[in-house]
Structure formats: structure tokens, C-alpha cells
């Protein structure tokens, strides 16, 4: 039986200027799922994330987070976010890993509330979860791309969210560290029952780690379990979102479980 829905999109459409970038998307993400949202470049994946996070407003349709309209939603401590931009932040920024992770607590705290010593344990707990505890006092700019992304996961974890949304977090991460990064996400999903929504254009890798897949090209053409996805034949696959998918899937061996 399906668990409670954390994100619900109902006929969501959005346009930049005159061009529709998201068209009539229905998508529900239930608690405990690890959903890979895949699609070619410019297919509206990142825009869809912005809509879910309330950073953009849809022209049509409804978005609910934890059962509440996104514009009225205020439990942001329940939602963690890791962007691809994390890779291109100002790497000369003078902050330690500890300070960066601690900043994730802001969503839990009230205005005027100061950091307390008890917050220290939370920060170290989150760092231990991503196996970065010994780097706590390193400057964030000294770390590799993969290590930085682990730190940003810890920043998302520190506020004890039930859902983490990741927007192409492996862009700029060495290929050898990408697998370890996915393994970490898989572990968080299984052991903490953390719901994950991850945007990726790397359909091969995501489908071997996620529990569910949604394929998108302006609208969602397939949404189901990874198992169902793997059981589709080539013809079904090419129907998922037109021709561009062929080029994308070419280089990746789809591994069947």
C-alpha cells in the first residue's frame, strides 16, 4: 500500500515568456520513495523542482507539499535541497565544513534565535552520516567536488527533513566518486526511510539506484517503479519522450536488478 504523499502535482504547467517549459504534469511522490526524475537537457526538470520548492509559481495546476498548498507551506525544515549549483559556489568563501552544515539549521530556527551548543551534536551527527566528520574544520573550498556534495547533503540532513530534493548533484563530481555518492543516497533512503527526489540526465546510473523513475520532456511520459521501467522494451522506451532519449541512453548500460 502506498504511504502518505509528500509531493503532489496536479496538472501543473509553467511558461517562461511565451514558451511552455512544463506542460500538464501530474506526479505524486510517496513517503519512502527514491524517485529519479530523468529527461534530456531543457526538458523542464529543474523548473519543475523550482515549482515544487515555491521558487516559481505555476501558470496552471496545483502543487501540494505534505498535503498543503505550496504557497501556504511553512514546514521548510522538512525539505532539504541540494543543487547542482553547489559545485559552482564561490570556492574562496571563508567557511568551514562545520559552519556550512550548521547553516542548514536556519530553517528550524526562529528569527533572533542564536546558535546553541546543542546544535553542535546535530552538526556532527549529520557529518557522520555522510562520513565527513573528520573534515569538520576544513575550509569548504579545500574539498573535492564529491566531498563538497556530501557536505551539502549533511547541510540538508541537519534539519531532520523527511524529504530531500537533489537537482543534478553529481555534475562536477569525479566519475569514481559518483557511485559512492549514489550508494550514500541509497543508504539514506533505506535506513532513514528518507524520501528522495533526484533530478538527473544520467538515466543509466539513476535507474540502477532509485526505486522509482519519472521520465519527463515538458510533460511526464512515464512514471513507475524502476522494475517496470527495466521491463520495457526498446520501442516503449523510445516512446517515453520522443527521439532525444535514444542519444542519452546510448552510452549507458542499463543494469537489470
Amino acid at each position: 500500500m502506498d504511504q502518505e504523499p509528500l509531493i503532489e502535482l496536479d496538472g501543473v504547467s509553467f511558461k517562461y515568456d511565451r514558451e511552455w517549459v512544463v506542460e500538464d504534469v501530474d506526479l505524486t511522490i510517496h513517503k519512502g520513495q527514491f524517485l529519479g526524475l530523468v529527461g534530456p537537457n531543457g526538458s523542464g526538470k529543474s523548473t519543475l523542482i523550482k515549482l515544487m520548492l515555491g521558487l516559481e509559481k505555476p501558470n496552471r495546476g496545483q502543487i501540494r507539499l505534505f498535503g498543503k498548498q505550496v504557497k501556504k507551506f511553512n514546514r521548510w525544515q522538512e525539505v532539504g535541497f541540494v543543487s547542482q549549483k553547489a559545485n559552482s559556489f564561490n570556492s574562496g568563501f571563508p567557511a568551514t565544513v562545520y559552519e556550512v552544515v550548521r547553516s542548514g539549521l536556519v530553517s528550524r530556527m526562529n528569527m533572533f534565535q542564536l546558535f546553541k551548543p546543542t546544535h553542535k551534536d546535530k552538526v556532527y551527527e549529520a557529518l557522520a552520516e555522510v562520513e565527513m566528520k573528520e573534515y569538520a574544520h576544513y575550509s569548504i573550498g579545500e574539498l573535492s567536488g564529491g566531498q563538497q556534495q556530501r557536505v551539502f547533503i549533511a547541510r540538508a540532513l541537519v534539519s531532520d527533513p523527511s524529504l530531500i530534493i537533489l537537482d543534478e548533484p553529481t555534475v562536477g563530481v569525479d566519475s569514481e566518486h559518483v557511485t559512492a555518492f549514489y550508494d550514500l543516497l541509497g543508504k539514506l533512503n533505506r535506513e532513514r526511510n528518507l524520501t528522495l527526489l533526484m533530478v538527473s540526465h544520467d538515466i543509466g546510473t539513476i535507474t540502477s539506484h532509485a526505486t522509482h523513475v519519472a521520465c519527463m520532456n515538458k510533460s511526464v511520459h512515464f512514471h513507475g517503479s524502476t522494475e517496470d521501467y527495466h521491463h520495457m522494451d526498446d520501442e516503449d522506451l523510445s516512446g517515453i519522450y520522443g527521439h532525444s532519449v535514444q542519444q542519452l541512453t546510448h552510452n549507458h548500460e542499463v543494469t537489470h536488478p
Partner: protein
Amino acid sequence: MIEAIFEYEFLQNAVITGLLIGLVAPLLGVFIVVRRLSLIADALSHITLTGIAASLLIEKRVTAVNDWNPMYMGMAFSVVGAVFIEKLRKVYKHYEELAIPIMLSGGIGLGVILISLADGFNTDLLGYLFGSVTAVSRDNMWTVVIITTIVVLIVLAFYKELFVLSFDEEHASIAGVNAKSIHFLFIVMVALVIASAMQVVGILLVSALMTLPVAAALRMSVSFKQTIGLSVLFGEISVVTGLISAYQLDVPPGGTIVMAAVVLLLLSIVYRKVRRSGNWWKGETI
């Protein structure tokens, strides 16, 4: 100089004001530098000059107005200028830095006209441009005490919001931080601190006190807290050595304070290179 401080009120005013400015200018400077807004301080200081000029002109032309304190008008212009910069940054979304030269040259242009109309090219003006050991009044000192207290309290209260906004604006808005209000509050604080610092360091050099100590601290620190601590320390050292040498040499303190900050900056670069002496000649960057 120590005995002189106990003897002369004007020196007490300059030293106390200097110490307060040495604290708040680098404190705000850290946030300005990491957000890559260093030039905003320059733009605002030039607008402050326009305010001073306007005040001088009104005092001269309007007989009812006597003995006006130009600092308040400078502050008002600086705050209004800050609001304008924010508006301009929205007008030129893709050329945000354009707001700075627009305000900077506009401020100086209007300032020059107003100063000429007020026949204001005299020694007083030199004091505003390069700072003065003798010009700080007790009133001005108290104003700076109040502004310093407010700024320090606000930075403490909003430390976490200011940090998140500086580090990752997108994350800040998802975390529910009201970026617009905090940013506005911040820029108004910068405007007030610039107008306060003007009397000691001078309009042309005030931005240096917000950026040079931070530039030096960045070479030596790992954490954000450390950057703030070192910036303030370097700011205070610059102000103290600058004021003492300005008094001894009878030159404007703006010059000596900024030169002290430059020396500290050079030392910090050398420190970093020596500490990493293993391969410093390879031209390693920050």
C-alpha cells in the same frame, strides 16, 4: 600622544570614534567582500559627499539654518543612495554592477556642483575627503556610538541569516529566510557606517577600511568566524597606528589609516606564502 588624549576633548572624540569604526567597518566589510559587493561602499561614500555638499549649501544660502551638522545629511543621502542602488540592480538584472558606477558618478557630479555653489572648496572639505583628527565633535561621536551599538546588535541577531544569504542565496530562500528584508537592512547599515566613518577616514578612503582588513583576513583564516575576528583586529590596528601617526606627522588620518591597512595586507600575503613555503613560488592562489 597619550597625555594629549586626556587633555584634549577633540582627540578623545577622534580616538573613540576611530575605535568604533575600526570595529563596525570591517564587520560589515566581511559580508560585503564575500558577496562581491566591494564597490558598493565606494558608491555610497561618494553619495555621502553629495549629502555633505547639500548640507553646506543649505547652511550658506538659508539664513535660518545655522550650525548644521553635515554628517546627518550625509547619512540621509547615503541611505537613500543605498535604496536607489537596490532599485537599479533590479532594473539592470543582468548588469547588476552597473548600479555602482551610475550612483558613483551621479553622486560626485551633483556633489561638485553643490560644493561649488556653496563656495565649499576649503579646508573643511579636505577634512571630509581625507579624514581629520580634529573635526570629530562630541555630538558626532555619540551618534557613532549609537550606530555602532545598533549595527553590532543587528549583526548578532541576524548572524545566521546573513551567513546563509552570503554563502548560498538560493538555499536561504528555501530555508524561509526573508532575503529581501535582510538585504535591505544590511545595505542601510552599510550606508550609516560609511557616513559615520567619513569623519575619521574621509569619504575617499572609507571603503578601504571595509575591504582591506577583510582582504588581509581572507589570506589567513579558515572559518567565517575567524575571518570576522581577524578583520576587526586588522581594522583596529590600522585605525590606532593610523591615528597616532597622523597626529605625530600632522597629516590627514585617512592616508595613514589606509597605509597601515595596506602594510597589514602585505604582511598577510607574506605570512601565507611563508607558511606554505614548500611551494610558494609556484604562484598558488586563494
